[in-house]
């Protein structure tokens, strides 16, 4: 089994095919989208491939140390950031092919006009523990 992170972006990903802001959809289209996402997560739990999933607020900041005895420096909220993550899902699957297949399904979620969004999702394999057998 191998773990993969599926990343959804507020911005920074290439433009989706059906790229309409959500507040311009109809309420029914919003409901259908949310339902699709919930069903997707439920289905992965059912197949034993779901690990974790969280949504992130777009409001955040950059923080770095400013030296001993000084409060950390903050910068934000993310005005300069080109890449903004909206949420993630961690899956534990048999193969990279399966990870790609699942990301494809997630990207197929319905959007404006009931048509699939075809949004770009980032798929990142985990660096996992070293195997026992190495030769």
């Amino acid at each position, binding site marked *: 089994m191998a773990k993969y992170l599926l990343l959804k972006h507020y911005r920074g990903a290439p433009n989706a095919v059906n790229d309409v802001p*959500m*507040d311009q*959809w*109809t*309420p029914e*289209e919003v409901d259908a989208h*949310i339902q699709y996402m919930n069903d997707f997560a439920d289905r992965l739990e059912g197949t034993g491939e779901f690990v974790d999933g969280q949504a992130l*607020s777009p409001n955040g900041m950059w923080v770095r140390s400013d030296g001993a005895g000084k409060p950390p420096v903050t910068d934000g909220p993310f005005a300069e950031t080109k890449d903004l993550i909206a949420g993630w899902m961690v899956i534990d699957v048999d193969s990279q092919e399966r990870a790609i297949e699942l990301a494809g399904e997630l990207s197929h979620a319905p959007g404006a006009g009931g048509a699939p969004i075809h949004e770009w999702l980032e798929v990142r394999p985990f660096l996992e523990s070293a195997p026992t057998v190495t030769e």
Partner: protein
Amino acid sequence: MHAETEVDAELLRSLTPQVLHVLVRRGADFATAEDAVQDALVNAVSVWPDDPPRDPKGWLITASWHAFIDRARSDTSRRNRERRVDAEPTAGSAPTVDDTLRLYFLCAHPTLTPTSAVALTLRALGGLTTAQIAQAYLVPESTMAQRISRAKRTLAGAAFDQPGDLTTVMHVLYLIFNEGYSGDVDLAAEAIRLARQLHAVVDDAEVDGLLALMLLHHARRDARLRPDGTLVTLAEQDRSQWDVALITEGVSTLQTALARDRLGPYQAQAAIAALHADAPRVEDTDWVQIVSWYDELLRLTDTPVVRLNRAVAVGEADGAPAGLAALAAVDEAVPRHSAVAAYLHERNGDLRTAAHLYADAARHAPNLQERDHQTRQAARVNQLLRDGELSER
């Protein structure tokens, strides 16, 4: 069979504070005694379903005492205490009302952080296992175990017989109640159980007010969410789904509290909840009286959140322009500010501003349900705008 197991678990948990206190009475230190009771609880959860004890409390006391002795023995640095506990234990007398109250004070001690106090209260007074608490707050069990043992180290110097701070106890119970997570452990129901237990041992109008507030909000719970988990606003809720028994109990608890004439913020919030509960239909809501309770609440605790909620009530009582005027005095940084502004602008007939603000409210939503709800609101108003443009053509 399942129902029987449930009853046992309930009983088990209600006995927790009593058993803990018996151990402390016998000379055990709080931190080790609490761990020992936890050992016994975990043991009981696995043993009781197949072999229910005839005397559950006696079983728990014996098991906890053995666990305590094991813990004390295995800890060589505590040799002195070991000598003391090795002697035949004196019979533990039944804990008094004050004993339970002291446990509440200790678990919500002002030196503890709120997250620590919450965890310790749920374990020592609620009888939940570390695993259950961890699951309820979506953190790893080892993290929750560390949080609890750190809390107990903080308390090591705290005297057990000192009078405590009822305000922090109530705040901890309120935090437990207001937690949105839902897992196998029902935190809201747990908070109500703990508030009832507190209500039984302390004579305080605000404790009554807190219990009433919890009961009145809990009564609406089934109506608050659709089966798919989406949020239903108070105005849109199916009021026939409200739990009449909980409302009745909440209202009578509140009336007893108010009769004492020692008003506090929990009673004022419960009074507002009671006025909503009192309206069979949303249009029957007595908004004028709700505004006057918000004025009381503001006098007791002037926070931006209270001001924001008051603006909503003013908008209902005196019309959207009055609501917007009240909103103008509220700090814009307060959570849900744009959600309230959007609602008032929509009521005021300014759909364009409302749509913009609903979208903003979705971006700034503090939780998923709220975000989805505000996104849907923005979509709804934008659709109204599009339909309006079509009909103008």
